[in-house]
């Protein structure tokens, strides 16, 4: 039944056309340059960026063939580092092996499949007449934007550099933070077509081996056509069946990843995206901002508490309003009830419908503001504020208290520092409003219980999601509710979940 359901939902796995690969696997590089050239040209038919450059010896025969894709190579490097040395040597009829060419990485291969792969990564391939192997030299150009401040997690105090789309640059950024050979990076290539580089990064000795194993296994078992962004991998590796609460942290900040690595977590760097995944993650990690550790601890603790309060508001404020005004009017102070009643006197809709409408409207405004080109973006907020805040209230379609509650909720959701945490919480509001409208506070209590059950049940790579509160650990909990002064020893370098979970985890496994 479940298999059928999954098939119906996901569809059958895509059939990959493997014809080309089989040819590639069978044939090897020949010793005749012309044959090799013909093969490459046939393979890259209708690919206008293929460049085949032949070097002729003194006798006029083609001695070498240099093949590369001009769009992803550094042409200057090609001419300086590859063409010139080979031309010189061609005249002197000496042999030149890959090691003597002064480029970064070079591979000698006779397998077409491998050669084509490397060619597509921006390598220059050098075939030599009479040899059945080709030399592949890195001359790829890293086209990338400059390092900028991360837009999804801005800070006031703290490093302003963010990851970019090029993995090697990202790794470099990370290496700047953690200068130790214990920083391991295991490379994987994911995506049958896209061949995306994925790095599993951790600090040996700090990271829990079982977590690293799990990540490795999960990533190795991924079978997809393409990986365009780390979101693909996030979805495929998380153990959460209903991913409302993310069990994978997403960040654009190298300092956050470095901090995570120091806490013994594992980072997954995907090429072509500035978003890096960090696992395992707990609920409380979602409520921490990197800035917590840069500000003074009383301020950071205060801000953290504000976040907890507003987390509650973000989830429950509209539903509490609905529950109290429809089922428990006796709970509202008389004068407040009178003013709510007079504000609602002209409103024809039930409070629940009204609140749901406003919430949906708010989400629409948010989405519109996000998707629109920046120049028109402002119009949306102005129109939204005028239409919803002013006209709808004046026309008596929406009551002012509802507008206040909904906008307060909207602001509250933005207080949550990790945006992927906020997303799930925004979604949760709607069923709770519905429950609150039909069952009152009892409905809210039910939904709260439900959420709590779900969250406590969750695990992120073996670590219970509510650590250190649910498997309780007094030592680690200090860093959840307070930002403990660093001299007290509980700081960034102590893994907050590690001590709390190691014992029960081992019991569970054996």
């Amino acid at each position, binding site marked *: 039944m479940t298999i059928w359901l999954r098939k119906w939902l996901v569809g059958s796995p895509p059939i990959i056309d493997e014809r080309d690969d089989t040819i590639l696997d069978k044939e090897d590089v020949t010793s005749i340059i012309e044959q090799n050239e013909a093969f490459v040209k046939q393979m890259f038919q209708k690919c206008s960026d293929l460049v085949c450059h032949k070097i002729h010896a003194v006798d006029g025969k083609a001695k070498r063939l240099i093949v590369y894709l001009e769009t992803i190579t550094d042409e200057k490097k090609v001419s300086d580092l590859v063409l010139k040395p080979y031309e010189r040597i061609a005249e002197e009829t000496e042999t030149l092996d890959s090691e003597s060419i002064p480029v970064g990485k070079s591979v000698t291969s006779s397998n077409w499949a491998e050669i084509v792969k490397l060619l597509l990564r921006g390598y220059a391939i050098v075939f030599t007449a009479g040899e059945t192997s080709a030399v592949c030299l890195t001359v790829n150009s890293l086209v990338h934007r400059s390092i900028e401040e991360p837009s999804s997690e801005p800070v006031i105090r703290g490093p302003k550099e963010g990851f970019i789309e090029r993995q090697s640059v990202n790794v470099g950024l990370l290496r700047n933070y953690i200068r130790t050979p214990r920083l391991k990076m295991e490379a994987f290539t994911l995506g049958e077509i896209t061949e995306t580089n994925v790095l599993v990064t951790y600090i040996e000795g700090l990271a829990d081996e079982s977590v690293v194993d799990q990540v490795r296994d999960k990533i190795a078992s991924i079978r997809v056509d393409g990986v365009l962004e780390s979101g693909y991998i996030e979805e495929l590796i998380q153990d959460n069946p209903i991913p409302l609460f993310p069990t994978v942290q997403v960040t654009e900040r190298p300092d956050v990843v470095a901090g995570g690595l120091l806490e013994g977590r594992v980072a997954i760097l995907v090429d072509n995206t500035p978003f890096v995944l960090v696992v395992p993650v707990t609920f409380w990690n979602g409520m921490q901002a990197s800035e917590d550790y840069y500000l003074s601890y009383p301020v950071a603790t205060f801000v953290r508490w504000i976040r907890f309060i507003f987390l509650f508001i973000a989830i429950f404020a509209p539903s509490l309003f609905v529950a109290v005004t429809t*089922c428990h009017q006796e709970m509202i102070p008389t004068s407040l009830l009178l003013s709510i009643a007079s504000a609602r006197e002209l409103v024809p809709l039930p409070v629940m419908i009204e609140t749901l409408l406003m919430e949906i409207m708010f989400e629409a405004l948010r989405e519109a503001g996000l998707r629109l080109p920046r120049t028109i973006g402002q119009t949306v907020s102005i129109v939204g504020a005028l239409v919803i805040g002013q006209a709808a209230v*004046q026309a008596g379609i929406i009551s002012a208290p509802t507008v206040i509650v909904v906008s307060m909720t909207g602001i509250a959701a933005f207080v949550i520092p990790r945006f992927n945490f906020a997303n799930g919480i925004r979604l949760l509001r709607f069923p709770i409003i519905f429950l609150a409208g039909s069952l009152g506070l009892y409905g809210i209590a039910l939904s709260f219980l439900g959420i709590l059950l779900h969250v406590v049940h969750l695990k992120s790579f073996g670590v219970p999601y509510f650590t250190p509160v649910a498997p309780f650990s007094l030592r680690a909990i200090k860093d959840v509710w307070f930002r403990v002064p660093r001299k007290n020893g509980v700081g960034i370098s102590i893994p907050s979940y590690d001590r709390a979970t190691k014992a029960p985890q081992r019991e569970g496994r054996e």
Partner: protein
Amino acid sequence: MKRWLRIGILLIPLVITGCWDRMEINDIGLVMGTGLDLMEDGNIRATLQISVPSPSSQTTGVKEGDRFFLISEVGKNAFDLDQKLQQKMSRTLFFSHRSVILIGESLARHGINDILDSFSRHPRNRLKTYVFVVKGMKAGDLLQVHYPYELVPAEALKEMQIMRGEGISTTLRDFLIASASEGINPAVGVLEPTHFFSSSQKVKDELFRMKGTAIFKSSALVGFLDNAETHAFLWFKKNKKTDKIVADLPEGNGNVGYFLTSSEVIIEPDMLGNHLKFHVDIKGKGNLFENNSRLDVGQPNNQKLIKKALENRVEHDMKVFLRKIQTQYKTDIVGFGQQFQRKDPQKWRIVEEQWDRHFAAAEISVSVNLTINNTGAIGPSLHLKEKEIMK
């Protein structure tokens, strides 16, 4: 699949036991106050003050209408009344926000046992509702008075009760506790009609004021205390915190005002044979707020004088009050009996049956000790000439 079915079955009882009594705010009629009067034929007339939530004029431009209206009905008991009153309303009567219950004097004298039951039984009723006895007017009529400050006059009554020191504040809960307890009787505040002049016209408008205390004996009104006696009674209440005491000075031809900030009253029961004795020990702390005499209050001798005058005043008032409840009404509203029961449960059994008679015969002595903490930063009054001040 089976799992989800099971979860679904588990969820059904969770949901069907919920409170499905949702009511929109637009569909409830907020009852702010109830007035109860006894009719000549023995039926009860109930008058409800219901607030009208008018859309605020600022946003809609609608002219503000009446903030409340009254409906009134005659019936046998509370249930009957409720049914009849609901027939007049387009919205469900909502009693949870009722702040006051006014009881007409005639009904109070007749006894309010019959209606008390419904107040305590219905869950929508608040036990924090204040109870008043209306003197000199029908309770229902008093609800008609327009009160200029508050949205509805019932709110004004509530606010007046919350202001401590100006009268006793008795909630339904206090009333029920006092009438159910041994050795104490309930006492509630009294409302009286009065008048005020509105700024535009010279016509007198109706208003109300709190004046005195109504003494109940087994749920029936037996008599009233006047303002001075009520203030003496307040010493025994926990809310004597912001009371003012005015005393004439024997010499120095003037008077002083004293502002009480904290007080403590200890009742010491004692029984020798059949002779019941109580000692009331009153302690108070406060500040001097007014001095109309030429005394320099900075002088310790003068302070002693003032203290003595104030203490005499309190003692006198207290004795008048005690005499009244002992001899005239023979009703223990203070809780002397309660204190006695707590101190000596064995002997209490002897007097329990006829407590009111025993209480009336008891000998009560009073001692007062007031402390003047603050004379108001200055010694003598500023406007006096040097030679006028009595050191």
